[in-house]
């Protein structure tokens, strides 16, 4: 770290490359490297380099947590409640205990406390056991006798709000806070199953609505979406006398390590969390979880490694989900569309958990002097929600961007022209310009204008997401005496390819190629890195990677300078060599320079410093950059009004993420966000049987995820939006790419058929119902 307080002035190019860059000065820590120019002037950063572990992935060599099988490993299964709500009166494990293949049993319910001897959703863990084989564990579960006394239950969001409905929690017993990535506001009132409201406001929304020429009011609904990680949640816990090692399919090795140390009263140096291949998280794998706690307790009891992996039905029922929402939105506007008021009231359900909100989307994206929101959590007897790819803002954008599209229609202003009036963001202005041209916005017709049964339409929507940074993000870089370079951090690669991005950052700095950097991640034996959630990985770990490499290079120059008859300041690293800037022929290979190192290696460990000029906000180890991440997406759809089937033909996604580090991997991420958003818009829905309280589609065939034949043409463009705020100026993309897709499709559907759908998913039945061609649900 730079000596605290020692700063120097640097000049950075700031703005969108291709639109206009202006010089801005920043105070930066004295020990940090000079500003990077735009990507076009860089050798390796900003280039489409394949990921470093690609070969391991295509050969099946990379090991996921489910593939880890240490000697003597036991297999764990969880006994789960078959009831949506019940007292647990007794648990008889005697038969299971007598089974010689069962080596450990751990309870998840404390029977001695009546307030806690309750199950509140089908699938809630009651206990876990570990046995010598998977089949032995499954059979042993059937030996356990549980005496449940069922209670009335409610699984429907609307029904749960009625005063006479069954209560999920007794008075005073509702959760007051939540762990993980999202923190629910503490101390909110609870009445029946309804907790809240969490309020936000500015100006005077009543006055704003009264002053409006035009009022748009609508109710918008979004469904529960499950993460459907292809690798199930799971871990291999190995409790040994000398320490606990956990292989964990996790988005946050360093965080889970701390949770384990706390939960099991261990010093941090006795806890190690490791992950290599990681089969998807999307927000659901950031914490230790019930299942993690159970597996570690089983390992401790059995004195053997224990693998606990969820089955697909368990994944669907109890590994987190995106909560459902019911939003009432009122917009007040002048005749030209400029906004006078936005009011949002939202009731959402995260089952027995919290955080079923609509984020800060409506509050933050548009110029509007008067705003008020009231967000409520409604408890239902269903599996708890968790963060899922842009929590809050994804359903929030569905509501608001649909309402704004309705406003555009009401005032007779083109939706793009309306955004130009109300959206202060110059970055999104450029994104709209690019996207409109790519989709062919100019040929967009009036809503419902196509004749014939196949009606086409074009729509658009926008995205806003905070540029998150985790300041407790560290990385060690080493140059070894033979010229090899290593980078080490506990940060985990969950599929976004952070490994090659770190390699590109270091290679650029050292004048090497990415393949020459050995990146070792996913192990808490290395310096603690950031979580891979909140789209913050790249923003958190690449700046300290550059700073560390830069400091090592200074040291290497000091070693090489005498041999090259030069001052250190006259040396540059490029093309695998250390050369005199002014006399390039006077130089040596990187390896030769490294051989001059006294001792075996040079090492530097750096931690993410503050954004130059400061963060907008800091909350513990997490911070928000000054500028939000944007994005604009356009959709072209074809709707068959006889079948109700919506075919998305084209999506144009124009996004920004600061300095794009690797366009190949960014494109993959954006495809992922778009396809998840498309799937959310049209197909996915957790369905609970309201008479049994059970999820009826706890699988991958009746829970519909978009497949290869639903994929539209996806055109991607990423702006290079330089801000001069860190050593790499790079930010994230995963969540921003997921926010605008559903409303873009919904607005395109409206343009196609002239009828507005306000609820997700837009299934064929929903489309036919909107067209008045199908019986509506009573």
């Amino acid at each position, binding site marked *: 770290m730079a000596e605290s307080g020692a700063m120097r002035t640097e000049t950075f190019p700031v703005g969108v490359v291709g639109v206009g860059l202006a010089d801005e000065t920043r105070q930066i820590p004295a020990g940090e490297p000079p500003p990077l120019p735009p990507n076009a002037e860089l050798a390796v950063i900003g280039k489409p380099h*394949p*990921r470093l572990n*690609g*070969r*391991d*992935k*295509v*050969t*099946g*060599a*990379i*090991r*996921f947590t*489910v*593939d880890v*099988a240490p000697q003597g490993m036991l297999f764990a299964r969880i006994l789960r409640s078959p009831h949506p709500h019940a007292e647990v009166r007794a648990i008889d494990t005697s038969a299971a205990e*007598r*089974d*010689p*293949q069962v080596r450990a049993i751990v309870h998840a319910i404390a029977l001695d406390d009546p307030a806690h001897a309750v199950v509140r959703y089908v699938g809630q863990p009651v206990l876990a056991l570990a046995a010598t084989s998977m*089949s032995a564990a499954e*059979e*042993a579960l*059937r*030996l356990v006798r549980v005496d449940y006394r069922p209670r009335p239950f409610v699984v429907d969001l609307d029904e749960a709000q009625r005063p006479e409905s069954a209560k999920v929690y007794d008075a005073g017993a509702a959760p007051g806070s939540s762990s993980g990535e999202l923190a629910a506001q503490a101390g909110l009132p609870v009445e029946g199953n309804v907790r809240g409201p969490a309020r936000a406001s500015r100006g005077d929304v009543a006055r704003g609505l009264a002053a409006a020429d035009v009022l748009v009011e609508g109710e918008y609904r979004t469904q529960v979406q499950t*993460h*459907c990680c*292809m*690798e199930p949640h799971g871990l291999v816990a190995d409790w040994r006398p000398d320490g606990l090692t956990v292989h964990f399919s996790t988005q946050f090795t360093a965080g889970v390590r701390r949770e384990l140390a706390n939960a099991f009263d261990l010093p941090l140096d006795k806890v190690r969390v490791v992950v290599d*291949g*990681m*089969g*998807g998280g*999307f927000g659901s794998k950031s914490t230790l979880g019930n299942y993690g706690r159970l597996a570690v307790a089983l390992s401790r009891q059995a004195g053997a490694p224990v693998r606990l992996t969820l*089955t*697909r039905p368990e994944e669907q029922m109890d590994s987190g989900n995106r909560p459902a929402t019911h939003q009432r939105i009122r917009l007040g506007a002048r005749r030209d569309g400029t906004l006078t008021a936005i009011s949002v009231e939202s009731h959402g359900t995260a089952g027995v958990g919290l955080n079923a909100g609509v984020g800060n989307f409506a509050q933050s994206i548009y110029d509007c002097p008067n705003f008020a929101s009231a967000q409520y959590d409604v408890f239902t007897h269903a599996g708890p929600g968790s963060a899922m790819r842009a929590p809050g803002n994804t359903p929030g954008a569905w509501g608001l961007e649909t309402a704004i599209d309705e406003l555009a229609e009401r005032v007779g202003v083109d939706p793009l022209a309306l955004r130009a009036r109300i959206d202060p963001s110059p970055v999104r202005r450029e994104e709209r310009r690019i996207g409109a041209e790519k989709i062919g916005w100019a040929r967009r017709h009036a809503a419902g204008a196509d004749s014939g049964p196949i009606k086409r339409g074009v729509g658009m929507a926008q995205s806003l997401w905070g540029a998150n940074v985790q300041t407790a993000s560290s990385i060690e870089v080493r140059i070894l005496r033979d010229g090899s370079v290593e980078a080490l951090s506990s940060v985990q690669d*969950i*599929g*976004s*390819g952070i490994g090659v991005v770190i390699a590109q950052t270091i290679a650029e700095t050292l004048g090497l190629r990415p393949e020459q950097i050995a990146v070792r991640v996913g192990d808490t034996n290395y310096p603690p890195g950031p979580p891979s959630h909140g789209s913050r990985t790249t923003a958190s770990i690449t700046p300290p990677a550059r700073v560390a490499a830069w400091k090592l290079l200074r040291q290497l120059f000091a070693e090489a300078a005498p041999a090259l008859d030069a001052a250190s300041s006259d040396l540059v690293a490029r093309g695998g060599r250390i050369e005199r800037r002014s006399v390039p022929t006077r130089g040596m290979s990187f390896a030769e320079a490294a051989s001059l190192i006294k001792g075996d290696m040079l090492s530097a460990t750096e931690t993410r410093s503050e954004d130059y000029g400061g963060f907008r906000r800091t909350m513990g180890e997490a911070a928000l950059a000054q500028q939000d991440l944007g994005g604009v997406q356009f959709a072209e759809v074809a709707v068959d009004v006889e079948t109700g089937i919506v075919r998305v033909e084209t999506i144009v996604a124009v996004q920004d993420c600061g300095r794009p580090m690797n366009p*190949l*991997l960014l*494109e*993959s*991420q954006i*495809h*992922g*966000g*778009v*396809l*998840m958003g498309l799937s959310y818009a049209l197909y996915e829905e957790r369905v609970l049987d309201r008479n049994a309280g059970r999820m009826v589609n706890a*699988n*991958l*065939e009746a829970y519909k*995820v978009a*497949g*290869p*034949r639903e*994929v539209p043409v*996806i055109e991607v463009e990423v702006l290079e939006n330089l801000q001069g705020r860190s050593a790499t100026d790079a930010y994230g993309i995963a969540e921003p790419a997921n926010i605008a897709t559903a409303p873009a499709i919904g607005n395109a559907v409206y343009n196609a058929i002239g009828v507005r759908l306000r609820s997700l998913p837009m299934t064929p039945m929903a489309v036919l119902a909107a067209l008045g061609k199908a019986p509506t649900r009573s």
Partner: protein
Amino acid sequence: MAKGGWSRRDVLSRSVYATAGVGAAQLIASAAAAGTAAPPDASAHDVVLHVNGIDRAVRIESRATLAEVLRGPLALTGTKIGCNRGACSACTVWLDGTPICSCMIFAVEVGARAVTTIEGLARGTELHPVQEAFIAHDAMQCGFCTPGMALSAAALLEQNAKPTAEDVERAISGHVCRCGSYPHVVAATLAAAEARKG
């Protein structure tokens, strides 16, 4: 999707653990109480499976799926289990060159047929053109569905040397990829087809 007329129901009704899930467990419990070890597994079979060109001798239970045997005793963990009921294709392997869901076939059904897993797609260190193309086009993200995808794509190219994008989409249509790799998988497969022509 069971071939050869076997279904899981058939096997369960013939095994020691038929419907007597509780009965069998009581058997074990009383044996344990008597101080003896768990009884020998009456449904175990010694078979030879031909996997990636090598004969592998293995002792397996009747109820074990090919996916479980590949991943367990054969330690070929490249084949993944995503749903265990043929809905996601993560467990895809070739049976005599045809892609199948290995979670949907019992290991005892395989017989003399040749099994090819992802570990058998490359020739030593020489990757299959589909694998090279997957790397170059970033046809993967988390990588969990990738082995199955690569095998389906490679099988397509054996059948159809000049596929269209739609042909590729159809060939991989059973695969669930939550990360959204489909567009790059299609691009990579088309590129691999081009490369093979040369």
